């Protein structure tokens, strides 16, 4: 078995906007092991979703994958033909999106939308595909009589379950979940996370995109933190939470409220930079309390201490 299911190497994605070129993802490398849950954390606009969509080749103009390699299960995804890629996407890679209210076709019954995946990828007949659709629908906890319901007849949580059912219908090796719980309330959020975890237990790798570090910490094996298009820290979840090395990760952790402790919430001062003209050196330095001369001049590279990697001039190792 290969060591990695998915390897992103030096990925660069740019958006050619009228007001300038946005470097949304700037030389990011990330690897996902088989059966692993990895969360990518960062604030809005840090490039985490763009990175995830690059894997599924869902970047459309004005966005463009400029450089890098994405190797999935031994194949270079950015160099497969569209026809071949369509066989991988939806079958070996499933994607769940943020807003369940809009991610299903409002005019088609959910059963037909689920069954379509079986018909497209496995060439099943409609009747057989509907049987399978009912099976997977029940697997995600939705009663079989909902098979002929339209999306508008379901709640947000139910719709997200349907979206997950479609994404996992063919038992993909990798499930990309782009903030799948952000649009849902906390209780529903938890049940959706449980559902995702149950698929992880069955062997599916999960690439979970979120802005919520606390949520990521609960379930992930590993966490990658992105800031302004760069990967700034990456490592086992418990190490990231207990011993964050990057000042940005530290800031993120301090901004999570603690129900049981006396901890005060602190926010990170300032705003993320404009990615059309990011600051020189370390992109976080204008907001960083530890910033020194080298931070303003030199861009830090990702250095690893065992499994824990960080891109910071000032990160000290205990």
């Amino acid at each position, binding site marked *: 078995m290969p060591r990695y299911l998915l390897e992103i190497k030096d990925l660069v994605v740019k958006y050619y906007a009228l007001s300038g070129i946005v470097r949304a993802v700037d030389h990011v490398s990330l690897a996902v092991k088989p059966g692993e849950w990895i969360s990518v954390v960062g604030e809005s606009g840090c490039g985490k979703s763009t990175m995830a969509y690059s894997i599924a080749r869902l970047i459309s103009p004005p966005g463009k994958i400029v450089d890098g390699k994405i190797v999935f299960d031994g194949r270079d995804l950015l160099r497969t033909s569209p026809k071949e890629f369509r066989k991988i996407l939806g079958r070996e890679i499933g994607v769940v999106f943020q807003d369940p209210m809009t*991610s299903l076709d409002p005019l088609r019954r959910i059963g037909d939308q689920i069954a379509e995946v079986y018909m497209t990828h496995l060439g099943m007949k409609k009747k057989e595909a509907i049987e399978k659709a009912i099976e997977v629908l029940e697997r995600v906890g939705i009663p079989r009589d909902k098979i002929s319901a339209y999306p508008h007849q379901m709640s947000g949580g139910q719709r997200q379950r349907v979206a997950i059912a479609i994404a996992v219908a063919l038992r993909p090796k990798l499930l990309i979940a782009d903030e799948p719980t952000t649009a849902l309330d906390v209780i529903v959020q938890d049940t959706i996370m449980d559902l995702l975890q149950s698929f992880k237990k069955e062997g599916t790798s999960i690439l979970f995109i979120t802005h919520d570090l606390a949520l990521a910490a609960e379930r992930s094996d590993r966490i990658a933190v992105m800031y302004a298009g760069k990967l700034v820290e990456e490592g086992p979840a418990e190490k990231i939470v207990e011993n964050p090395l990057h000042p940005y990760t530290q800031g993120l952790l301090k901004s999570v409220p603690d129900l049981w402790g006396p901890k005060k919430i602190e926010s990170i001062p300032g705003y993320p930079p404009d990615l059309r003209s990011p600051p020189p050196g370390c992109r976080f330095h204008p907001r960083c309390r530890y910033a020194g001369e080298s931070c303003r001049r030199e861009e830090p590279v990702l250095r690893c201490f065992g499994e824990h990697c960080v891109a910071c001039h000032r990160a000290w190792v205990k």
Partner: protein
Amino acid sequence: MAKKGLGYYIVVRALMIIPTILILYTIVFVLLRILPGNPILAVVGTRNIPPEQLRHLEHLAGLDKPLIAQYFDYLWNVLHGNFGVTLASPMGVPVMDYIATRFPATLELAIWGFTFSVIIGLVTGMIAALKRGGKIDTTMRIYSIVAYTLFIPWLGMILQYVFGVVLGVLPTGGRIDPRINLQTITGLYVLDSILTGNLPALISSIKHLILPSLTLGIVLSGAYTRLVRNNMVDVLSMDFIRSYKARGIPGYKITWYALKNAFIPVITLMGLQFAILLGGAILTETTFSWPGMGTFIVDRIEYRDYNSIQGAIIFFAFFVAVISLVVDVIYALLDPRIKY
């Protein structure tokens, strides 16, 4: 709101046709009486006729009654399915006889014009949306504005000149070659030719239909081009399209699902356009000497033939109202989100 179902909605909508037609009839009635002259004077013209004979003719036509009585008499007749008789040249022919031969002509023109407009609009709008931002998109958008603002008789005459005079491939007027004998069943010539297996009549009636319905179709297609393009662009940027891509669904299928979603508002426009379509048919008919309701109404206005005009317009309005009801029902059946 309590769920009352589609049946309830249809009944309510059908009942709303009654005031619509009453208002329309009142307006037409008043306008006709404001026009100078009356049917008898229109026929008599400048000839000298003894006043007592004139009064006798007016009495025969019921024009000596008070206006209010004329208003309710006619209304009463219409409620009993009687659209009255012509008041002039010739006098005394049931208006319904005219409608029976004229209306199918207009309907046939309207159906073809409508089909042309929807096809042209859908294709141009869809292409524009799929190629959005490019030269093709710009061309289609310009087309939509130009088509929308074209004057039907002007476009009709251009087409008549090009295809009828210069190229000589298509007739410029009429419904069918007068030498061909066609047994009418429905009054829709294309359908009748097929039903009676009359091939020469089929070819001739289609040839006669092309130019007028194309004229009507082009002018009406502009609105569709614009609407389809804009809806399609909206739908294509929606999340569920991205979801389809992420499931590995082939592109042509995604385009089809997008088109279905973009089509919903187009159905509303179709209902509205159908009324405009019948109005446009009047201009088209006069341009192409098409023996339909349009030429009939224009012709009868010359004679101040009150009964014919009132009858034709009420019939027309009733038809438009029923069509728009049908469109709304189709809309409800197509979009599962709509509840009544």
